[in-house]
């Protein structure tokens, strides 16, 4: 075991797989010499060579589109988008090809591509550096969307993502890149995609969250505990496909559910969870499934960002209302 933060854990997963699989390659803007603007790929170029870990020209569509070709030719590209807010120029390649080539070729060409990117707010960043568009990606058939919340999960999920023969959008909560440290196994291990984790058993209300929001929910749970409310916390881990069973089981027990996300409110992840719960546990529902999310607004610049972000109080506020419904 070794103490790692998220950055270390991701670097470690990349390193292990680069060693193990000669077809895996890593590229993106400034990931080579510089090791990425968040230093996630630090040292990998020196270890694995310039053919396999390298800087791409500044063009996201180019990065994603060439990855499609590489995957067709048998490579396993792990590409980095410098921030999730800069993935949009690559949107056409992602939705039209990464998500579809396998179907279009009727299984002939797999797309074992991982698109890694830091996402989410809370780091006092400029515009476009605080986005959470996971719901948008999750709506695209052919993709899977994975978001870790701890160093341990980051390593295990990224290993699975790299080994997956389906394309994975791998979103890294940059706000906690270095904020959470934890003992992580040094050997290779995998956490299955599509399985949520029940982080805390509880009886009064289920909270579904992921990424940097887990920490905020945990803070809210302290307040809830003081108020005598027992919260069951589910870390979604995979946004698509959602682990319906774990959620339904929990709601059948608690009768109440709140989804907490950083993303924009309307047409977001929370709405999907509500739909699922309505389908799978309707008769158990004792209160309306609620959402604690961003507003239907652009993430404000740092001086206004705290209004937009979820924190312990915002979450606890909704917990109280839901439990007292």
């Amino acid at each position: 075991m070794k103490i790692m933060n998220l950055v270390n854990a991701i670097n470690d997963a990349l390193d292990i797989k680069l060693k193990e699989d000669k077809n895996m390659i890593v590229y993106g803007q400034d990931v080579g010499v510089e090791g990425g603007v968040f230093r996630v790929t630090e040292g990998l170029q020196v270890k694995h060579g310039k053919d396999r870990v390298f800087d791409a020209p500044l063009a996201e569509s180019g990065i994603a589109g060439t990855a499609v070709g590489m995957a067709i030719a048998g490579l396993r590209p792990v590409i980095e988008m410098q921030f999730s807010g800069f993935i949009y120029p690559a949107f056409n390649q992602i939705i039209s090809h990464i998500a579809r080539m396998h179907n279009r070729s009727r299984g002939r060409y797999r797309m074992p591509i991982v698109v890694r990117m830091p996402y989410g707010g809370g780091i006092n960043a400029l515009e476009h550096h605080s986005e959470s568009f996971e719901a948008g990606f999750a709506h695209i058939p052919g993709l899977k969307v994975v978001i870790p919340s701890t160093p341990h999960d980051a390593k295990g999920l990224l290993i699975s993502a790299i080994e997956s023969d389906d394309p994975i959008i791998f979103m890294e909560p940059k706000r906690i890149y270095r904020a959470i440290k934890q003992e992580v196994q040094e050997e290779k291990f995998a956490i299955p995609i599509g399985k949520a984790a029940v982080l805390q058993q509880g009886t009064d209300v289920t909270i579904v969250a992921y990424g940097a929001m887990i920490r905020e929910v945990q803070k809210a749970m302290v307040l809830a505990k003081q108020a005598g409310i027992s919260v069951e916390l589910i870390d979604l881990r995979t946004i698509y496909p959602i682990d319906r069973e774990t959620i339904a089981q929990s709601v059948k027990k608690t009768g109440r559910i709140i989804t907490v996300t950083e993303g924009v409110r309307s047409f977001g992840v929370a709405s999907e969870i509500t739909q699922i719960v309505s389908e799978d546990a309707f008769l158990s529902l004792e209160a309306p499934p609620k959402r604690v999310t961003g507003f239907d607004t652009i993430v404000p610049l740092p001086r206004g960002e705290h209004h937009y972000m979820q924190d312990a109080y915002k979450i606890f506020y909704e917990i109280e209302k839901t439990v007292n419904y």
Partner: protein
Amino acid sequence: MFKEYSPLNKKIFRIIDNNGKVKNKKWMPEIDNKVLVKAYKDMLFARTADLQTVNYQRQGRIFTYPPNYGQEAISGAVAQIIRHDDWLVPAFREMGAWLAKGVTLTEVFLYYMGNEDATRFKNANKVIPFSVPIASQLLHATGIAYEVKIHKKKEVVFTFVGDGGTSEGDFHEAVNFAGVWKVPVIFIVQNNQYGISTPTRVQTASESIAIKSVAYGVKGIQVDGNDFFAMYAAVQEAHKLALAEDGPILIEAVTYRKGAHTTSDDPTKYRTKEEEERWDKTDPMTRLKAYLTDQGLFDFDEDKIIAEYKKEVDRQFVAAENYTEYPIEDVFKYQYVDMPDDLKEQKREYEKFLKWKESKVK
């Protein structure tokens, strides 16, 4: 060749004139007579199939189809040079090249009948499916070529795009990445003067499309795309260079889309009869045929061959028509290698619905 015909010199690379006379001996490629006749016949087959397909469409037996008519020399030249081990990254208007790589007409037809099974191209080596989002496929070619390069394979990647496609950002990124990575890819721009109704001058103010190669530090050449010999020589040279790690290469093949954009299009809306007639004189098949005739190589009964080809085309068409139904399973099966449970459930639920429907409808 790439020096003499550098796009900066503003000369189009041409070998035979409209009457099939060799006007540029220096660059006349040496082609075995047998190969030459085969090339002509391949082009004839492609043209026959193409014209037949338009007919099938008129008969309502397939959906929209984009004809190749008039552009056969481009694919026809590539067809003679591309090898089993070379890659083909298609757009959607280069039938001759597909056939050369082992794509069958049945697959082509099946595609335009609306079945994804077609683009598995199961007996074709190193071909990827047709690409509909314009210019996006060029990046795939660059990516494949990157793999070829780092694994030191002796392979060349051929890819196609139209004149309209050069306006897309992906064209820029694909050629630019290829230039930086110095990978063995040949970009062939079929400049057929139009993108649907939009003439090339609305796409770009540059003097040619070939000259865009300068922006990426790659070799480029403007070729008379209706001149089989010029296309052959240029593609052959490009192929050699790419194998010698001296790629990428951008070839602008100047041609004319004699047919409609697709079978849903009506070109009389946006171009004149005079223009069409002017270009008719440059028809690639007529020119090659004139050359063959001059050389005494045109010693076969073309009508008879066309009749045979038509039969073969028909046979392959009927095979596509008789292709198995589209099983429900196929809607779901290839979305993921590892199918999510929820998707499995969607399929089960749909099958349940169908049973219910059956009980209701009858």
